[in-house]
Protein backbone atom coordinates (compact mmCIF):
# COMPACT_ATOMS: atom_id res chain seq x y z
CA UNK A 1 0.00 0.00 0.00
CA UNK A 2 1.34 3.42 -0.76
CA UNK A 3 2.17 5.12 2.42
CA UNK A 4 4.10 8.20 3.30
CA UNK A 5 4.94 6.42 6.54
CA UNK A 6 7.18 3.83 4.88
CA UNK A 7 10.46 5.04 6.27
CA UNK A 8 13.42 5.99 4.08
CA UNK A 9 16.22 3.56 4.73
CA UNK A 10 19.14 5.62 3.62
CA UNK A 11 20.15 9.22 3.94
CA UNK A 12 18.20 11.18 1.40
CA UNK A 13 20.22 13.33 -0.95
CA UNK A 14 19.10 16.92 -0.81
CA UNK A 15 19.96 17.82 -4.40
CA UNK A 16 19.91 14.71 -6.60
CA UNK A 17 20.59 16.39 -9.95
CA UNK A 18 23.88 17.70 -8.58
CA UNK A 19 24.95 14.20 -7.58
CA UNK A 20 23.99 12.38 -10.71
CA UNK A 21 26.26 9.66 -12.09
CA UNK A 22 27.81 10.14 -15.51
CA UNK A 23 24.88 9.06 -17.65
CA UNK A 24 24.97 10.37 -21.20
CA UNK A 25 21.28 10.98 -21.71
CA UNK A 26 21.32 14.67 -22.60
CA UNK A 27 23.36 17.84 -22.46
CA UNK A 28 22.46 19.27 -19.09
CA UNK A 29 22.58 22.87 -18.04
CA UNK A 30 21.33 24.72 -15.03
CA UNK A 31 20.13 28.29 -15.37
CA UNK A 32 18.58 30.94 -13.13
CA UNK A 33 14.97 32.07 -13.65
CA UNK A 34 16.01 35.49 -14.90
CA UNK A 35 18.08 33.93 -17.67
CA UNK A 36 15.90 31.01 -18.62
CA UNK A 37 13.92 32.80 -21.31
CA UNK A 38 17.01 34.11 -23.06
CA UNK A 39 18.66 30.72 -22.88
CA UNK A 40 15.65 28.96 -24.34
CA UNK A 41 15.41 31.46 -27.18
CA UNK A 42 19.08 30.88 -27.93
CA UNK A 43 18.60 27.12 -27.89
CA UNK A 44 15.64 27.36 -30.19
CA UNK A 45 17.61 29.50 -32.61
CA UNK A 46 20.36 26.89 -32.40
CA UNK A 47 18.05 24.23 -33.80
CA UNK A 48 16.35 22.74 -30.75
CA UNK A 49 13.05 22.95 -32.54
CA UNK A 50 11.00 20.65 -30.35
CA UNK A 51 10.11 21.10 -26.72
CA UNK A 52 9.69 17.52 -25.63
CA UNK A 53 8.52 18.16 -22.12
CA UNK A 54 8.25 20.72 -19.36
CA UNK A 55 8.03 19.40 -15.83
CA UNK A 56 8.85 20.30 -12.28
CA UNK A 57 10.32 18.65 -9.21
CA UNK A 58 9.99 19.70 -5.60
CA UNK A 59 13.07 19.60 -3.35
CA UNK A 60 11.79 21.04 -0.08
CA UNK A 61 15.13 20.65 1.74
CA UNK A 62 16.97 22.62 -0.88
CA UNK A 63 17.13 26.28 -1.76
CA UNK A 64 15.77 27.05 -4.39
CA UNK A 65 12.96 24.67 -3.75
CA UNK A 66 11.56 23.85 -7.16
CA UNK A 67 13.25 22.73 -10.34
CA UNK A 68 11.50 23.42 -13.62
CA UNK A 69 12.95 21.04 -16.19
CA UNK A 70 12.81 21.65 -19.93
CA UNK A 71 13.57 18.74 -22.25
CA UNK A 72 14.47 19.85 -25.77
CA UNK A 73 15.16 17.92 -28.93
CA UNK A 74 17.21 19.02 -31.90
CA UNK A 75 15.66 17.83 -35.12
CA UNK A 76 15.87 19.13 -38.58
CA UNK A 77 12.26 19.67 -39.64
CA UNK A 78 11.20 18.51 -43.05
CA UNK A 79 13.66 15.64 -43.10
CA UNK A 80 12.14 12.70 -44.86
CA UNK A 81 14.62 10.01 -44.05
CA UNK A 82 16.24 8.94 -40.83
CA UNK A 83 19.69 9.73 -42.11
CA UNK A 84 18.70 13.30 -42.78
CA UNK A 85 17.45 13.60 -39.24
CA UNK A 86 21.03 12.77 -38.33
CA UNK A 87 21.16 11.64 -34.71
CA UNK A 88 18.85 14.02 -32.89
CA UNK A 89 20.29 15.53 -29.74
CA UNK A 90 18.70 16.05 -26.40
CA UNK A 91 19.11 19.01 -24.11
CA UNK A 92 17.95 19.34 -20.56
CA UNK A 93 17.64 22.75 -18.99
CA UNK A 94 17.05 22.92 -15.25
CA UNK A 95 15.84 26.11 -13.67
CA UNK A 96 15.81 26.48 -9.90
CA UNK A 97 12.73 28.38 -8.76
CA UNK A 98 12.50 29.76 -5.24
CA UNK A 99 9.52 29.02 -3.07
CA UNK A 100 9.05 32.66 -2.17
CA UNK A 101 8.78 33.77 -5.80
CA UNK A 102 7.51 30.78 -7.78
CA UNK A 103 7.49 32.57 -11.12
CA UNK A 104 9.04 31.69 -14.43
CA UNK A 105 8.50 33.29 -17.83
CA UNK A 106 6.24 31.32 -20.09
CA UNK A 107 7.48 29.89 -23.37
CA UNK A 108 4.15 29.41 -25.08
CA UNK A 109 5.13 31.76 -27.86
CA UNK A 110 8.29 29.79 -28.56
CA UNK A 111 6.73 26.34 -28.50
CA UNK A 112 2.97 26.05 -28.60
CA UNK A 113 2.95 22.73 -26.77
CA UNK A 114 4.19 24.42 -23.61
CA UNK A 115 0.60 25.53 -23.04
CA UNK A 116 -0.80 22.51 -21.23
CA UNK A 117 2.53 21.55 -19.69
CA UNK A 118 2.79 24.92 -17.96
CA UNK A 119 -0.80 24.71 -16.81
CA UNK A 120 -0.08 21.32 -15.31
CA UNK A 121 2.98 22.57 -13.46
CA UNK A 122 0.91 25.47 -12.16
CA UNK A 123 -1.85 23.12 -11.08
CA UNK A 124 0.30 20.54 -9.36
CA UNK A 125 3.16 22.70 -8.01
CA UNK A 126 1.89 26.25 -7.85
CA UNK A 127 4.55 27.78 -10.07
CA UNK A 128 3.23 30.72 -12.07
CA UNK A 129 4.22 31.18 -15.68
CA UNK A 130 4.26 34.85 -16.56
CA UNK A 131 2.84 35.57 -19.95
CA UNK A 132 0.76 32.44 -20.24
CA UNK A 133 -2.54 33.30 -21.96
CA UNK A 134 -4.77 31.03 -19.89
CA UNK A 135 -3.15 29.86 -16.67
CA UNK A 136 -5.72 27.79 -14.82
CA UNK A 137 -5.92 24.34 -13.34
CA UNK A 138 -5.92 21.48 -15.78
CA UNK A 139 -5.91 18.19 -13.88
CA UNK A 140 -7.68 19.08 -10.66
CA UNK A 141 -11.16 20.57 -10.51
CA UNK A 142 -11.28 24.36 -10.72
CA UNK A 143 -11.98 25.02 -7.07
CA UNK A 144 -9.42 22.59 -5.68
CA UNK A 145 -7.22 24.01 -2.98
CA UNK A 146 -3.59 23.13 -2.72
CA UNK A 147 -0.97 21.87 -5.12
CA UNK A 148 -0.94 18.08 -4.95
CA UNK A 149 2.51 17.18 -6.17
CA UNK A 150 4.31 19.30 -3.62
CA UNK A 151 6.05 17.17 -1.05
CA UNK A 152 4.13 18.69 1.84
CA UNK A 153 0.76 17.86 0.33
CA UNK A 154 -0.48 14.65 1.93
CA UNK A 155 -0.83 11.67 -0.36
CA UNK A 156 -4.48 11.10 0.40
CA UNK A 157 -5.46 14.73 0.36
CA UNK A 158 -5.84 16.83 3.47
CA UNK A 159 -9.41 16.09 4.31
CA UNK A 160 -9.78 12.45 3.63
CA UNK A 161 -10.39 9.79 6.14
CA UNK A 162 -11.76 6.45 5.04
CA UNK A 163 -14.36 7.77 2.59
CA UNK A 164 -17.66 8.52 4.24
CA UNK A 165 -20.40 6.39 2.81
CA UNK A 166 -23.57 8.43 2.91
CA UNK A 167 -26.98 7.05 3.58
CA UNK A 168 -28.52 6.90 0.23
CA UNK A 169 -32.05 7.40 -0.95
CA UNK A 170 -32.60 5.37 -4.02
CA UNK A 171 -34.28 7.98 -6.14
CA UNK A 172 -31.82 10.59 -5.20
CA UNK A 173 -31.04 13.63 -7.18
CA UNK A 174 -28.81 14.96 -4.50
CA UNK A 175 -26.04 17.23 -5.50
CA UNK A 176 -22.99 15.06 -5.77
CA UNK A 177 -20.46 15.61 -3.04
CA UNK A 178 -21.17 16.99 0.35
CA UNK A 179 -19.16 19.70 2.04
CA UNK A 180 -17.00 18.32 4.81
CA UNK A 181 -18.97 17.91 7.99
CA UNK A 182 -18.67 16.15 11.25
CA UNK A 183 -15.50 14.11 11.52
CA UNK A 184 -14.21 15.16 8.13
CA UNK A 185 -14.41 18.85 8.91
CA UNK A 186 -12.79 18.20 12.24
CA UNK A 187 -9.97 16.25 10.65
CA UNK A 188 -9.38 19.06 8.18
CA UNK A 189 -9.33 21.66 10.91
CA UNK A 190 -6.94 19.52 12.92
CA UNK A 191 -4.53 19.18 9.99
CA UNK A 192 -4.55 22.91 9.37
CA UNK A 193 -3.90 23.60 13.07
CA UNK A 194 -1.04 21.11 13.15
CA UNK A 195 0.58 22.59 10.12
CA UNK A 196 0.28 26.09 11.47
CA UNK A 197 1.84 24.98 14.74
CA UNK A 198 4.71 23.29 12.91
CA UNK A 199 5.50 26.20 10.68
CA UNK A 200 5.12 28.73 13.44
CA UNK A 201 3.75 31.27 11.09
CA UNK A 202 0.27 32.38 10.19
CA UNK A 203 -1.85 30.56 7.68
CA UNK A 204 0.24 29.46 4.77
CA UNK A 205 -0.89 30.75 1.46
CA UNK A 206 0.37 29.96 -1.97
CA UNK A 207 2.32 33.06 -2.98
CA UNK A 208 0.43 34.59 -5.89
Amino acid at each position, binding site marked *: *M*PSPQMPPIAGSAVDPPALRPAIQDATIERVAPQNVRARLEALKADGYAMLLDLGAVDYPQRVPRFDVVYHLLKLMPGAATVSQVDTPQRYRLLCGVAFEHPRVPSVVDLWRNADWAEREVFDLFGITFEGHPDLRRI*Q*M*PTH*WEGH*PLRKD*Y*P*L*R*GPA*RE*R*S*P*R*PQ*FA*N*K*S*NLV*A*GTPPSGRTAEALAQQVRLRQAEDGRSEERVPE
Partner: protein
Amino acid sequence: MEVGPGQFFLAKLDDVARWAQSSSVWPLTMGLACCAIEMMSVTAPEYDIARLGSEVFRASPRQADLMIVSGRVAQKMGPIVKRLYDQMADPKWVISMGACASSGGIFDNYAIIQGVDTIIPVDVYVPGCPPTPDGLLHAVNLIQKQIREGGRGGILARA
Protein backbone atom coordinates in the same frame (compact mmCIF):
# COMPACT_ATOMS: atom_id res chain seq x y z
CA MET B 1 -46.01 -21.84 -16.49
CA GLU B 2 -48.76 -24.24 -17.44
CA VAL B 3 -50.41 -25.08 -20.69
CA GLY B 4 -54.13 -24.71 -20.36
CA PRO B 5 -56.85 -26.00 -22.69
CA GLY B 6 -56.72 -24.43 -26.15
CA GLN B 7 -52.94 -24.21 -25.91
CA PHE B 8 -52.42 -21.00 -23.96
CA PHE B 9 -49.42 -20.39 -21.75
CA LEU B 10 -50.33 -18.89 -18.43
CA ALA B 11 -47.74 -17.03 -16.48
CA LYS B 12 -47.55 -14.18 -14.09
CA LEU B 13 -47.11 -10.85 -15.81
CA ASP B 14 -44.36 -9.95 -13.40
CA ASP B 15 -42.36 -13.04 -14.37
CA VAL B 16 -42.70 -12.20 -18.02
CA ALA B 17 -41.63 -8.65 -17.41
CA ARG B 18 -38.61 -9.79 -15.43
CA TRP B 19 -37.69 -12.29 -18.11
CA ALA B 20 -37.88 -9.59 -20.75
CA GLN B 21 -35.88 -7.12 -18.70
CA SER B 22 -33.16 -9.57 -17.83
CA SER B 23 -32.79 -10.69 -21.42
CA SER B 24 -32.06 -7.29 -22.84
CA VAL B 25 -29.96 -5.31 -20.43
CA TRP B 26 -28.41 -2.46 -22.39
CA PRO B 27 -25.30 -1.01 -20.85
CA LEU B 28 -24.25 2.61 -20.79
CA THR B 29 -20.78 3.29 -22.15
CA MET B 30 -19.14 4.49 -18.95
CA GLY B 31 -15.71 3.46 -20.02
CA LEU B 32 -13.18 5.38 -18.05
CA ALA B 33 -9.80 3.64 -18.05
CA CYS B 34 -8.16 0.24 -18.44
CA CYS B 35 -11.30 -1.64 -17.48
CA ALA B 36 -12.97 0.00 -20.45
CA ILE B 37 -10.62 -1.85 -22.75
CA GLU B 38 -11.66 -5.13 -21.16
CA MET B 39 -15.25 -3.99 -21.53
CA MET B 40 -14.59 -3.48 -25.22
CA SER B 41 -13.11 -6.97 -25.33
CA VAL B 42 -16.34 -8.22 -23.84
CA THR B 43 -18.21 -6.88 -26.85
CA ALA B 44 -15.68 -8.47 -29.19
CA PRO B 45 -16.31 -11.88 -30.74
CA GLU B 46 -14.27 -13.90 -28.25
CA TYR B 47 -16.39 -13.03 -25.22
CA ASP B 48 -19.43 -11.56 -26.90
CA ILE B 49 -21.75 -9.92 -24.44
CA ALA B 50 -24.40 -9.60 -27.14
CA ARG B 51 -25.42 -13.19 -26.65
CA LEU B 52 -26.50 -12.28 -23.12
CA GLY B 53 -28.79 -9.62 -24.45
CA SER B 54 -26.55 -6.57 -24.27
CA GLU B 55 -26.76 -6.07 -27.95
CA VAL B 56 -25.92 -2.38 -27.98
CA PHE B 57 -24.01 -0.12 -25.68
CA ARG B 58 -25.82 3.17 -25.54
CA ALA B 59 -23.98 6.41 -25.10
CA SER B 60 -27.04 8.26 -23.93
CA PRO B 61 -28.11 7.54 -20.36
CA ARG B 62 -31.74 7.93 -21.31
CA GLN B 63 -31.54 4.79 -23.39
CA ALA B 64 -29.51 2.53 -21.13
CA ASP B 65 -30.45 0.51 -18.11
CA LEU B 66 -27.11 -0.78 -16.89
CA MET B 67 -24.21 1.44 -15.99
CA ILE B 68 -20.92 -0.41 -15.99
CA VAL B 69 -18.51 1.91 -14.19
CA SER B 70 -15.31 0.61 -15.69
CA GLY B 71 -12.26 2.38 -14.50
CA ARG B 72 -10.98 4.78 -11.91
CA VAL B 73 -13.25 7.71 -11.05
CA ALA B 74 -11.25 10.91 -10.69
CA GLN B 75 -12.29 13.95 -8.68
CA LYS B 76 -13.42 15.80 -11.78
CA MET B 77 -15.36 12.85 -13.10
CA GLY B 78 -17.30 12.06 -9.92
CA PRO B 79 -20.06 14.63 -10.40
CA ILE B 80 -20.39 13.54 -14.01
CA VAL B 81 -20.91 9.91 -13.05
CA LYS B 82 -23.51 10.97 -10.53
CA ARG B 83 -25.29 13.15 -13.04
CA LEU B 84 -25.37 10.37 -15.61
CA TYR B 85 -26.74 7.94 -13.05
CA ASP B 86 -29.48 10.38 -12.21
CA GLN B 87 -30.31 10.83 -15.86
CA MET B 88 -30.82 7.12 -16.42
CA ALA B 89 -34.44 6.03 -16.39
CA ASP B 90 -35.73 3.54 -13.85
CA PRO B 91 -35.23 0.66 -13.44
CA LYS B 92 -31.48 0.84 -13.59
CA TRP B 93 -28.61 -1.24 -12.32
CA VAL B 94 -24.96 -0.56 -11.71
CA ILE B 95 -21.96 -2.81 -12.05
CA SER B 96 -18.81 -1.51 -10.45
CA MET B 97 -16.15 -3.09 -12.61
CA GLY B 98 -12.66 -3.43 -11.33
CA ALA B 99 -10.86 -2.59 -8.15
CA CYS B 100 -10.74 1.16 -8.78
CA ALA B 101 -14.47 1.55 -9.21
CA SER B 102 -15.23 -0.73 -6.29
CA SER B 103 -12.91 0.76 -3.74
CA GLY B 104 -10.33 3.05 -5.25
CA GLY B 105 -8.13 0.12 -6.12
CA ILE B 106 -4.40 0.62 -6.00
CA PHE B 107 -4.82 4.40 -6.10
CA ASP B 108 -5.25 5.29 -2.46
CA ASN B 109 -4.60 8.98 -3.00
CA TYR B 110 -6.07 12.46 -3.35
CA ALA B 111 -7.14 12.10 -6.93
CA ILE B 112 -9.36 9.02 -7.01
CA ILE B 113 -12.77 8.59 -5.46
CA GLN B 114 -12.43 5.59 -3.19
CA GLY B 115 -15.23 3.54 -4.59
CA VAL B 116 -18.00 4.63 -6.86
CA ASP B 117 -20.45 3.33 -4.27
CA THR B 118 -19.80 6.50 -2.30
CA ILE B 119 -21.76 8.36 -4.94
CA ILE B 120 -24.12 5.89 -6.57
CA PRO B 121 -25.66 2.60 -5.40
CA VAL B 122 -23.97 -0.48 -6.83
CA ASP B 123 -25.53 -3.86 -7.48
CA VAL B 124 -22.59 -6.03 -8.43
CA TYR B 125 -18.89 -5.50 -7.76
CA VAL B 126 -16.34 -7.16 -10.01
CA PRO B 127 -12.86 -7.57 -8.53
CA GLY B 128 -9.76 -7.50 -10.68
CA CYS B 129 -7.30 -5.05 -12.08
CA PRO B 130 -8.63 -5.27 -14.71
CA PRO B 131 -11.07 -8.15 -14.36
CA THR B 132 -10.92 -10.57 -17.24
CA PRO B 133 -13.87 -10.30 -19.61
CA ASP B 134 -15.15 -13.53 -18.07
CA GLY B 135 -15.53 -11.68 -14.81
CA LEU B 136 -17.65 -9.02 -16.41
CA LEU B 137 -19.79 -11.63 -18.11
CA HIS B 138 -20.34 -13.28 -14.74
CA ALA B 139 -21.34 -9.92 -13.32
CA VAL B 140 -23.90 -9.42 -16.06
CA ASN B 141 -25.21 -12.89 -15.32
CA LEU B 142 -25.58 -11.94 -11.69
CA ILE B 143 -27.48 -8.82 -12.65
CA GLN B 144 -29.79 -10.91 -14.77
CA LYS B 145 -30.30 -13.26 -11.83
CA GLN B 146 -31.07 -10.31 -9.59
CA ILE B 147 -33.62 -9.08 -12.05
CA ARG B 148 -35.29 -12.42 -12.43
CA GLU B 149 -35.37 -13.50 -8.86
CA GLY B 150 -35.82 -10.47 -6.77
CA GLY B 151 -34.84 -6.92 -6.23
CA ARG B 152 -35.45 -4.24 -8.70
CA GLY B 153 -37.07 -5.75 -11.73
CA GLY B 154 -40.56 -6.50 -12.94
CA ILE B 155 -43.42 -4.29 -13.93
CA LEU B 156 -43.59 -2.48 -10.61
CA ALA B 157 -39.86 -1.89 -10.53
CA ARG B 158 -38.47 1.12 -8.88
CA ALA B 159 -34.78 2.01 -8.77
